[in-house]
């Protein structure tokens, strides 16, 4: 049985499916508690039902985008694990970066079905869990005290409606951190093409660079649609579809 076939085996579906089912149960518990509390506190049941209905319809489109991300990762990590990671805590851009870093740490180089081993997979899975868990850890230890201390006051002053904090170096530093991260990888693709077979031979693998270019162009198109044509709904798919088109271009590039 191939590594990917093993990663798609029933026991892995059972483990990942059970955890997802547990998280679904948590959601049900919180819905019931919040609804009952709202009624007990005198809130209008019609408004509560509207909140539930709109919150149930809003995530359908983004969820399809997330599903595309599951497909993108399933080629190298199998289906069950990306299904779990993108159902619980995860986000597509995060999962892919961490999986790639883990692939390098275990010595298989790139996140690829050809180089994947079972040991590399469990290591990658553990690193993905450890890297993303800090929001939950902070919540366990600090949520109660933090909310008590700020008393929820002025929180609206600090945030805009889309949830992004206004101005300040914090925002710029976060963007800069991601710019540094992306620059390191794109630099490695450029270096790989120019010098991997000897300094300045320009005979290395150019496919990753081509893929970077294609997915950037697709993302530029989505940004154009979102900002110039006011089709904000495309944001739900922009990263996943850019990735899938970029990945598809690799098939064409490899035939050249």
């Amino acid at each position: 049985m191939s590594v990917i076939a093993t990663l798609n085996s029933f026991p892995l579906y059972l483990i990942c499916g059970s955890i997802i089912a547990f998280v679904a149960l948590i959601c049900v518990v919180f819905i019931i508690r919040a609804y009952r509390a709202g009624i007990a506190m005198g809130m209008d049941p019609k408004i509560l039902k509207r909140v539930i209905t709109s919150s149930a319809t809003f995530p359908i489109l983004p969820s399809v985008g997330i599903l595309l991300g599951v497909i993108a990762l399933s080629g190298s990590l199998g289906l069950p694990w990306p299904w779990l990671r993108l159902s619980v805590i995860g986000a597509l851009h995060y999962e892919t970066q961490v999986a790639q870093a883990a692939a390098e740490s275990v010595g298989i180089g790139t996140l690829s079905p050809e180089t994947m081993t079972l040991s590399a997979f469990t290591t990658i899975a553990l690193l993905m869990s450890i890297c993303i868990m800090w929001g939950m850890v902070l919540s366990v230890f600090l949520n109660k005290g933090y909310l008590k201390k700020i008393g929820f006051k002025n929180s609206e002053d600090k945030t805009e409606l889309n949830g992004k904090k206004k101005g300040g170096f914090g925002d710029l530093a976060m963007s800069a951190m991601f710019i540094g991260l992306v620059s390191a990888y794109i630099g490695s693709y450029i270096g790989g093409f120019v010098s991997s077979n000897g300094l300045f031979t320009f005979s290395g693998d150019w496919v990753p660079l081509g893929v970077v270019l294609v997915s950037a162009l697709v993302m530029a198109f989505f940004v154009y649609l979102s900002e110039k044509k006011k089709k904000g709904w495309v944001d739900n798919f922009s990263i996943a579809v850019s990735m899938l088109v970029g990945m598809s271009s690799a098939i064409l590039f490899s035939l050249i």
Partner: protein
Amino acid sequence: MNRNDYFEKYNKKTHFLGRVFSVITLVLLVGAPFLMGSILGASPDIGAVAKGFISVGLVWFVSSIVEFLIYTPMLGAGGSYLAFITGNLINMKIPCAVMARDIAGVKTGTPENEIVSTLSIATSSLVTIVVLALGVLLLQPIQGFLQSPVLQPAFANVVPALFGAMAYKYFRGNMGIAVFPLVIMSLLFILVPSLTGSTSMMIIPSGGIAIGIAYLKFRNKK
């Protein structure tokens, strides 16, 4: 029991349940790779996990702190415990909670917002779980196709595809910051090609350069 006492009691139990569920989810998530490893006969390499965490995990650790500080007051107790368990905050949970808050006409920091935010995040998480479960079920018949050799170059290029999309998003409007780490990293990888095997370690100096330049630009603007 009056309204305030009721809410106080509700909130106290929310923190209790939120903590208990978060700890159980943490144990399940960290335990799953070990369980899968014991079934597959391949345990995780702890040394490689530590190395990977130092290179890329620290970036996300800082990101988690920022997200916790910003989003917790917006979402309230129940909403934030749930949001950090279920993830996809910026692309789904936050906009959904804000929309629900607008529909209900409640203000951040009020008991009503606590109720609405929890309802909104729990419902949207549940829908995502159902959509993904249905999607995974529907993907079963095409598993063979997904594993066919002709598609393998696509799956081998997941990471460049992600970074191409992210590069456009982050570089536009920030080219003054991006040009330095991009040029320096490219030159480094061209002159020392063996560094390609440890690209994730190069995120640290690259990120440091970008943050340093961002700080200089920020200070000059002030």
